[in-house]
């Protein structure tokens, strides 16, 4: 995944600064606290954002979402708490469950681990942006047809991970599906049907082995 283009907010320059300080410290162990503070002050003086709310413009599902939020607000919280796009879910808020997965320029990311300000300038797709003119996407259709959801709370995350996979690799193997969903958890236990749905999208659906026996 490429880095977010956030030069316009000064974040990048501060990061680069810290990186260089770190390197210097390791190589020469010479950067005194005083010079670090002075340097930091200089960099901050150039462009500081926050801690108060700042204008943020996000490109979500092809529309521009203009928000006034603190720089520490994550992309997930920006969507869920500052817009009506609650499709991405919060399951853990620390990159462990995948319920918050969205696409950033077609690449699945945990939106709880991305600051909203960093997501600017990228095309963000949430689960609400997949159906076009009321027509479900192939992954959505396959989820419905294979009952690949129960409570449905993890479902948007899985759908986004698989949408990302299929964009890159339209005919994944079962193992590639497993790998693509390694960052998504489901507590209801829908995984077998999710795999079935994904393989259906890949054109490799396998028949169910379930048997119903009568008296």
């Amino acid at each position, binding site marked *: 995944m490429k880095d977010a283009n956030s030069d316009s907010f000064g974040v990048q320059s501060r990061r680069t600064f810290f990186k260089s300080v770190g390197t210097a410290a390791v190589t020469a162990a010479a950067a005194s606290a005083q010079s670090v503070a002075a340097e930091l002050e200089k960099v901050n003086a150039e462009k500081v954002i926050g801690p108060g709310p700042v204008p943020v413009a996000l490109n979500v599902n092809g529309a521009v979402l203009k928000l006034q939020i*603190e720089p*520490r*607000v994550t992309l997930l919280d920006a969507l*869920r*708490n500052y817009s*009506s*796009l*609650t*499709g991405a*879910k*919060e*399951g*853990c*808020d*620390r990159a*462990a*469950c995948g*319920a918050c997965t969205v696409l950033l320029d077609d690449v699945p990311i945990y939106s709880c681990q991305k600051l909203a300000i960093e997501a600017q300038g990228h095309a963000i797709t*949430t*689960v*609400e942006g*997949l159906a076009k003119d009321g027509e*479900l996407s192939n992954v*959505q259709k396959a*989820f*419905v047809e294979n*009952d690949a*959801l*129960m*409570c*449905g*709370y*993890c*479902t*948007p995350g899985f*759908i986004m991970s698989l949408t990302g996979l299929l964009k890159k690799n339209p005919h994944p193997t079962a193992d590639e599906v*497993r*790998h693509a*969903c*390694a960052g*998504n*958890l*489901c*507590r*209801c*236990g*829908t*995984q*077998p*049907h*999710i*795999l079935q749905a994904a393989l259906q999208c890949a054109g490799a659906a396998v028949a*169910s*082995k*379930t*048997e*119903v*026996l*009568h*008296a």
Partner: protein
Amino acid sequence: MPSWPADTKYISHSTQRIDAVPKVTGRARYSSDIQAEGWLYGMILRSKWPAAKITKIDLQNALKTPGIKAAITVREGERIVRFYGEELAAVAGATKEACLDALRAIVVEATPLPFVVHETQARKEESPRVWPDAANASAGRARESGDVDQAFGECAVVIEGLYTTPVQLHHPMETHGNTASWGEEGVTAWSSTQGISSVRDGLAGALQMEHSQVRVITEYMGGGFGSKFGAGVEGVLAARLAREAKAPVRLMLTRFDEGLAVGNRPSSFQKIKLGAKADGTLHAFQMDNYGTAGIGGGGSSEGGSGSVDIPAPYIYQVPNTRVQHTAVAVNAGAARAFRAPGNPPASFGMESAMDDLAVKLGMDPLELRIKNDPNPVRQREYKEGSERFGWKQKYQKPGASAGPVKTGVGCASASWGGGGSGYTQGEAQINPDGTIEVRLGVQDLGTGTRTVIAVVAAEILGLRPDQITVKIGDTRYPPGPGSGGSTTCASVSPTVFDVCKRALEELQKQSGIADARGDNWFAACKKLGANPLLVHGKWQEGLSSSGAGGVQFAEVSVDTETGLVTVNKIVAAHDCGLIINQNTLESQINGGIIMGLGYALYEERVMDRLSGVLLNPNFETYKLPGLADVPEIQLVLLNMPERGVIGIGEPATIPTAAAIANAVANAIGVRVAGLPITPAKVLAALGKVPPSTSPPA
């Protein structure tokens, strides 16, 4: 006595989940998605002490934090907290960020107290007491039949073992929580719950309001598994904050919170002695079990039972038995009901003992089960399941598999009660334009309750399921039970049957059309004129029954160099009564199996005995099965319409862990007697690494 139709178009077939589209498009609004006008964010401050006397909670700085609209304490005055994570105070503010700032600004003065978090330590007399007036360990009365001591002397073979199961956390993907909003008529809570009625009653009680002043709405919720019946401390706090702030408050727990204070499955330490005659007939059984349900014996925990008692000798009949359970209090969050309370640990202990006995008898463990299981339905499941699994071809003597990666097979069984709730009610409104709304005060946890209602209504009325508008999850609808005990399907289906039969009868009477179903539906509805038809109905006897069994077979590979267990295949044979909707039924069984797999191999609440803190409150450290861990699952469904509707959610999860554990023992030739079966325990059982010393004996 009413009876289900024999020829069906929808019942016993597969109808797509009727709320699947809102769920796959993000349109479904879960309790955590509610954005009431002017809503505030709510958060809870929790005890960082496992035991302490709280002398003062100063909220002044929190109230001064920009954006904060309310800050409250859980209780006035001094108090004792008894576990890490117990609720102390709560704040509501315009943003999550403001709440985070405010929580940091709350000053708590406390005197730490001695604590104990491990049941093995807590049961000792000298351990700190969780409750000052009672010993930590409280033994129940022993249950005894026959003459156990004499009977063991009559046995040809006797085995003894200590089989242990950990505390398991529910971890629904949507955490516990509510959005609470006050209006003229009282308070409305959009609650992530499996019991809208019990939340309403709980909130009314805590807020000293009339039931009629509390409305609970649960349109979509993200899983519960037994942990979401009560209003909860967090629900009451949300309502209090909203009242104080004069604005709606959304208070959802964090994932960390979820591991602390909203329930768990009690542990078990089952010392089992089992004896049989030479032909394998079980003759004597003795169990001395202890476990912990946290700070409570279980009964006092909010929102569930959570007792440490487990059924023993589980599904088997042994003429001479002695069983004793001891609940051990520790400084940790209280247990709650957890999918098939008591049963997965019971199955693990007894079914492990059965396999150990079979080894000593030199018998095939499947044969030992067939010999001793009195249940005729399970007898059929042993046969049908084992044939499809290929038990005869796959079963080898323990440890007989060659090479460093050994394969093994195991089998275990389940028993569950279930049955319908007699007080379930419902109503149908048939409009002159032919639209119909069926309303019940139940909730859909993801089990497919909405779809079950649509399927039954469509069948009775001769319509398609998508023509039925199902309204559930609101205490303003006719009362229904909480979703627990695998009773929902058996409660809801007969109720909808009755509602629709009555509605049809009334429609035919009013319209003068003899059969208003199917093609005649719209013509009949049109004759209603201007007034919709509203018909009430209730649960009827004879359309459902209780009692469910299940037998599962597991095949595993165990890498004896790394200790890693991989489950290759599960075959699950379950009796399903009258199948209402097959695809959602399959999902339920898959889900039960996968949760059982987590219990077998990964899941365990780990408390730090030195600090009293929960060490693994999050998913990096509390491991759930992922897609790559899920084996091939083959289902064998026994459709038994003559029994009416039964439940499946719980029986499906009961035997999985035991079947996997038996397969592991069969693969490596030694027993890992404690869940979860981690690589470290496998290697220790093989004598390749020293056994772990935690928890301390």
